């Protein structure tokens, strides 16, 4: 600090000082210098790639040569409407919706406790307890469930210990959601998704709840509302934007995941897996691109609705 003052007192003559004065007068120039590199990077690499993706989705594969034909056509999008592909889309959207719904139910009590009752050290502990899983390795977290859900794994063992094996077997024998073991069923996929994205749901709800003024709840009480009533009519509506904000993450992340259903789940595909397979072994980048436009569109619709509900203020 001392050095700074000493040199600064030398008067406004040095090269750097004059340059600094020039920049101060032309704040537009500073802005351009600051924004240039990041915008160039994101603009060229990211937005450019998105355009490449969009462009590719209008190309098609030549059935004879298997090469991409660079002519604009809607043929590839037509392929999305095949029953098998529609199934994939529907399956993914239903899974995303279920994960979002149940995620909100589990996340709410945690967020509520963290926002309204936890104080001091406990609050910090809560924060870390939610942040750690959020940032820790995605793959390792999926893998943990592979261990837990395996037929010989911990969950089966635990269920056997409490004598609920018939219940588990009954669940697994159900059509559609059942399977040979939890780690090869939709139930397993669902559990892993739920686990993976839960922190993304907790944080926005907690943020929304923390902004509910205590005085408002007291006022509700003073006006004769029972705690349940105050919760339903005051707290819940104010927390709703937080729930919607959280659901943006859980929904979007489930839509785009291709690794989880590959490791824990059935052989039936989700959108992400379809994208992955078509771009990889099948070499059909146009169809992969068209498939990946689906989650973008679904998210665009979702975000429009979310914006109407004021979710962005809760982010």
């Amino acid at each position, binding site marked *: 600090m001392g050095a*700074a*003052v000493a040199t*600064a007192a030398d008067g406004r003559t040095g090269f*750097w000082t004059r340059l*600094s*004065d020039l920049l101060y007068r032309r704040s537009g120039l500073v802005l351009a210098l*600051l*924004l240039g590199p*990041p*915008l160039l*990077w*994101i*603009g060229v*690499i*990211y937005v*450019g*790639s*998105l355009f*490449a*993706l969009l462009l*590719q989705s209008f190309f098609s594969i030549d059935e004879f040569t298997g090469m991409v034909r660079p002519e604009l056509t809607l043929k590839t999008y037509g392929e999305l409407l095949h029953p098998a592909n529609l199934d994939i889309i529907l399956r993914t959207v239903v899974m995303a919706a279920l994960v979002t719904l149940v995620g909100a139910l*589990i996340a709410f*009590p*945690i967020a509520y*406790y963290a926002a*309204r009752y936890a104080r001091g050290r406990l609050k910090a502990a809560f*924060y*870390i*307890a939610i*942040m750690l*899983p*959020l940032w*820790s*390795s*995605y*793959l*390792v*977290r999926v*893998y943990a469930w*592979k*261990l*837990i859900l395996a037929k*010989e*794994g911990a969950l089966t063992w635990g269920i056997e210990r409490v004598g609920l094996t018939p219940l588990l077997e009954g669940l697994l024998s159900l059509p559609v959601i059942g399977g040979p073991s939890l780690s090869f069923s939709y139930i397993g996929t669902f559990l892993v998704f739920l*686990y993976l994205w*839960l*922190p993304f749901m907790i*944080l926005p709800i907690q943020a929304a709840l923390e902004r509910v003024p205590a005085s408002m709840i007291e006022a509700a009480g003073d006006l004769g509302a029972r705690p349940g009533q105050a919760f339903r009519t005051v707290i819940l509506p104010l927390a709703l934007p937080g729930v919607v904000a959280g659901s943006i993450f859980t929904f979007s*992340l489930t839509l*785009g*995941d*291709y690794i989880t259903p590959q490791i824990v789940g059935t052989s039936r595909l989700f959108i*992400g897996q379809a994208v*992955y397979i078509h*771009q990889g072994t099948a070499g059909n980048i146009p169809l*992969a691109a068209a498939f*990946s436009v689906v*989650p973008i569109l679904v*998210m665009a619709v979702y975000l429009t609705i979310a914006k109407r509900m004021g979710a962005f203020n809760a*982010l």
Partner: protein
Amino acid sequence: MRSEGAKAGLGLKLAAAGGLLFLHLPLLMIVVYAFTTEEKSYQFPPPDLTLKWFAVAWAREDIWEAIWLSVQVALISTATALVLGTLAAAAVARRRFFGRETVSLLIILPIALPGIVTGIALRSAYSLAEIPFSFWTIVLGHATFCVVVVYNNAVARLRRTAPSMIEASMDLGANGFQTLRYVLLPNLGTALLAGGMLAFALSFDEVIVTTFTAGQQTTLPIWMLSELVRPRQRPVTNVVAVFVIAVTFLPILAAYYLTRGGEQVGGSGK
């Protein structure tokens, strides 16, 4: 809220505790499995405990190569993201200008869209431009989504830095660069350190985008993924998983301690 001395009901406490257990027990399982003697299955409880898998994993060349590639990618991506993210944050933090909202949206976009979209978008761009896969194709993708992390941390800190500090520095005769050097950067330091560490953790662990941009190269997460899909030596994978947990936990905790005491910063919007 506390004025009425309200206590949480038992139901709420149980639900919150149950939720947190659900979040944390699975990672504990990984640690348990790293010591199991059972090689062929995921048998629980483990028949016996051993330390030998740590030695086996240590001796594996392919794991070291994967770790080294991941570290290189993460370091270069983090460095790039630090520069770009700080610049963007400096532009957006206090100024109002036309298109400001668009700029922040653009920067957040790479993590707002599903990872697979980023992956396949880069993949099709490389394919259209006929760029062969290389170390740098991985870095391009990683740096792009790491920018957000640095940006979030830097913006939050800049907004908390009192404008009067900058004015005072100017009043005392410092020029813009001196103010930057002696006032702004020291203030920003820990936020950038935290952002950098989170960016490192994010890149070190990234797999969804990387599978599309790596070609035949194997980063550590790609190594793990191939082991998960086609297990060869399960206990070794468990040991690597424990290693990954340790490597990512430390920067996250450090980032938390560097940025606490303000609005939530560390992970807001991964």
